[in-house]
């Protein structure tokens, strides 16, 4: 069959070309050209993805032989191999394979689509900044790695993208590298991600040991085949194992899944490793929108959905994911309640929403998790871009306490932000209402633990509504608390993405979870027990979710709009709890005391011992050579007759060695002599 090529390789390569162009020439060419290249490269990728989507949609009504000549029809999954044998070592065989299926197509649409909008926004936002070209080259680099991550057909290529987005994230967090806090935040993000990547890498090695391949399809196929064969083998119908090799035990699969989960938790800022994301807000705001809200941090969710077969075979790992997700969602939401920096509120909100996605994955509702990923990309990018617009208007001030009454000053921002706030709070008929509801419903159906997880999710939904409306009231309502110095007019290039994202946040959920699951089913498996058998509880659960969202809004209205002095009194009434939240549960301090300080101490003193040993050994060897030289240099007397004497003595010694009958003098030496002589 002649499969038309979609030229998938162009999708990552275009931004990479933009990166090279702007990275090398950026400082020497007019700013307009930088803008053109920086924005057109992602646009080109986005159009290619749209083309691929259209091609796959045409083929969606299957068995259509008459529409053959259209020839653009492509069946998913569609695999393109760029070059054979990237790595060919013994049994290990890895190719540069790009694979497009429903999951990666949805993800690519989000990455390149939202990515393009944010590039467009950056033109206005970063217009006056130093290092404009550097900024765009980094942003393009990020898109390159992200699309490699999404398109990868095997784990190793995915790992390349995985590490690459980490690099781009590091570069962009530390974009204002003159600022100590920004540089430190970049380092923190990089190091915390390394911990996760360590787990990811161990997981890869385990997969390689168990399956002998890193290709997603092969691993999934082997797992499924093993599962079906093992049933036969237990029944005794099949005494042998047809060429699959030894079946990994559930324990081994669980360990593998947990290692991969560690990687996902690092990248997606889940509970033990979330600490880097709030600090990552040191980067420019569009970067926070693109990398630290919409795309990169969802890579962990994507990876879990991509490898869902493995997680399905490791129920314990799934349980860990669900608990980790619910706990992260809850704790991050409580921390978001008391933040005063507008971007940090959004950062904790991102962590919390990622927790929802993990919860969805943990209850095996992968399509719901991906659905939430998509809607979250829309509304969280919108929230960040709106916040960027606010910060822009405030002349760089990010403190919520200084804001207020911005409604009149920034009408477009106000209305788009309002849509985003109502979306994230979960009001129908906005996007997140549908996706969050799908996750909570799936959790509710997931056995007895599921009920508890659902309850945590519901409480989190209440907290989410509360802190988002708090932000809304503090920033846009009430009286201006600070005189705006020089009020920037918001450029059109910043407004267009806001409006488009607002429309998407508004309508994005109307696709419905049913359609999303059936579309994603070939990639992530059919959802379990998501039948419409019990519509009664679903309606009740939905009502409960809307009720808590309304409650959150009402309390925020009471505390932050009608009586703005009330929150301070409340905080004063329970200082311990408030202190705990403001200091973010002292997690940074605890990590500092438990991990960082001992590590520094070990490096300083422990490594001193190692240095002493190594240095001592080097000194000893050097000293011996020096000492030998000191003695032997006396031979180099410069006296001609002493040289002559040594020469003669040497010749005499050789003569003696040749003439003495060694075997008679010392029989045991024969062996040695014959060896020396080479016999």
């Amino acid at each position, binding site marked *: 069959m002649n499969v038309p090529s979609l030229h998938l390789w162009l999708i990552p390569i275009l931004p990479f070309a933009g990166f090279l162009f702007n990275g090398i020439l950026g400082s020497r060419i007019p700013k307009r050209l930088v803008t053109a290249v920086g924005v057109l490269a992602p646009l080109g990728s986005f159009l290619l993805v749209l083309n691929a989507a259209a091609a796959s949609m045409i083929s969606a009504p299957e068995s259509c032989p008459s529409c053959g000549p259209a020839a653009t029809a492509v069946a998913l999954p569609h695999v393109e191999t760029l070059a054979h044998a990237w790595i060919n070592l013994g049994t290990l065989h890895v190719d540069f394979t790009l694979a497009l299926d429903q999951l990666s197509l949805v993800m690519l649409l989000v990455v390149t689509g939202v990515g393009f909008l944010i590039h467009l926004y950056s033109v206005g936002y970063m217009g006056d900044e130093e290092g404009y070209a550097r900024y765009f080259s980094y942003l393009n680099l990020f898109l390159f790695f992200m699309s490699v991550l999404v398109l990868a057909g095997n784990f190793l290529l995915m790992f390349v993208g995985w590490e690459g987005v980490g690099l781009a994230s590091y570069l962009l967090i530390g974009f204002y590298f003159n600022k100590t806090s920004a540089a430190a935040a970049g380092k923190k993000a990089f190091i915390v991600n390394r911990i996760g990547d360590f787990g990811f890498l161990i997981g890869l090695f385990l997969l390689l040991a168990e399956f002998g391949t890193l290709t997603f399809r092969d691993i999934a196929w082997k797992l499924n085949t093993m599962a079906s064969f093992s049933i036969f083998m237990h029944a005794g119908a099949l005494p042998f194992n047809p060429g699959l090799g030894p079946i990994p035990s559930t324990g081994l699969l669980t360990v593998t899944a947990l290692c991969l989960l560690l990687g996902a938790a690092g990248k997606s800022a889940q509970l033990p490793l979330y600490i880097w994301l709030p600090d990552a807000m040191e980067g420019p705001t569009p970067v926070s929108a693109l990398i630290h809200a919409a795309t990169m941090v969802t890579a962990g969710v994507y990876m879990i959905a991509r490898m869902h077969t493995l997680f399905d075979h490791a129920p314990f790992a799934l349980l860990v994911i669900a608990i980790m997700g619910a706990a992260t969602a809850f704790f991050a939401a409580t921390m978001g309640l008391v933040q005063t920096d507008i971007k940090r509120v959004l950062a904790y909100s991102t962590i919390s929403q990622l927790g929802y996605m993990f919860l969805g994955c943990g209850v095996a509702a992968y399509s719901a998790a991906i659905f939430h990923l998509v809607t979250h990309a829309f509304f969280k990018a919108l929230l960040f871009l709106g916040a960027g617009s606010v910060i822009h208007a405030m002349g760089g001030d990010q403190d919520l306490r200084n804001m207020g009454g911005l409604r009149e000053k920034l009408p477009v921002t106000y209305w788009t932000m309002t849509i985003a706030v109502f979306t994230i709070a979960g009001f129908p008929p906005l996007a997140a209402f549908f996706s969050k509801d799908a996750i909570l419903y799936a959790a509710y159906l997931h056995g007895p633990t599921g009920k508890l997880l659902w309850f945590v999710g519901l409480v989190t939904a209440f907290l989410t509504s509360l802190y988002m409306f708090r932000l809304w009231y503090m920033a846009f309502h009430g009286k201006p608390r600070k005189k705006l110095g020089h009020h920037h007019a918001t450029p059109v290039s910043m407004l267009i993405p806001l409006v488009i994202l607002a429309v998407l946040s508004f309508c994005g959920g109307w696709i419905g979870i049913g359609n999303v699951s059936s579309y994603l089913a070939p990639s992530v498996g059919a959802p379990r027990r998501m039948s419409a058998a019990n519509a009664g509880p679903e309606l009740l659960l939905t009502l409960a979710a809307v009720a808590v969202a309304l409650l959150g809004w009402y309390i925020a209205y009471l505390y932050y709009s009608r009586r703005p002095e009330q929150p301070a009194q409340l905080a004063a009434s329970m200082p311990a709890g408030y202190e705990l939240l403001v200091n973010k549960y002292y997690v940074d301090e605890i990590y500092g005391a438990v991990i960082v300080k001992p590590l520094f101490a070990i490096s300083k003193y422990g490594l001193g011992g190692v240095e002493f040993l190594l240095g001592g050994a080097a000194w000893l060897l050097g000293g011996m050579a020096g000492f030998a030289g000191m003695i032997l*240099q006396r031979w*180099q*007397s*410069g*006296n*001609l*007759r002493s040289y*002559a*004497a040594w020469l*003669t003595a040497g010749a005499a010694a050789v003569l003696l060695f040749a003439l003495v009958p060694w075997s008679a003098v010392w029989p045991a030496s024969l062996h040695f002599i014959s060896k020396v002589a080479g016999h």
Partner: protein
Amino acid sequence: MDVPLNWYLLLSAALFSLGVIGFLIKRNLITVFMSIELMLNAVNLSFVTFAYQWHAVKGQIFVFFVMMVAAAEAAVGLAIIIAVFRARATLSVDRIDLMKL
């Protein structure tokens, strides 16, 4: 009347030993140089002796090579000696010791 082989070899050994002794104990650079030539010619003598004994021409060919090298060495060596003498106005090997550490 044939001279026995041993005599040639003894003469060669005696000449070589004289060369070694002269090489070791003489102080004049030219004498040392001549001692080296003496050793070379002692070896040449033994080469010729063996070639005659075994009726093999290889030894004689080798002698030509040695003489050639010795001639070249003499040319270079004498030039060096003249240069040294011009620079230092002495030929005593004990005083030509600038190369020591």
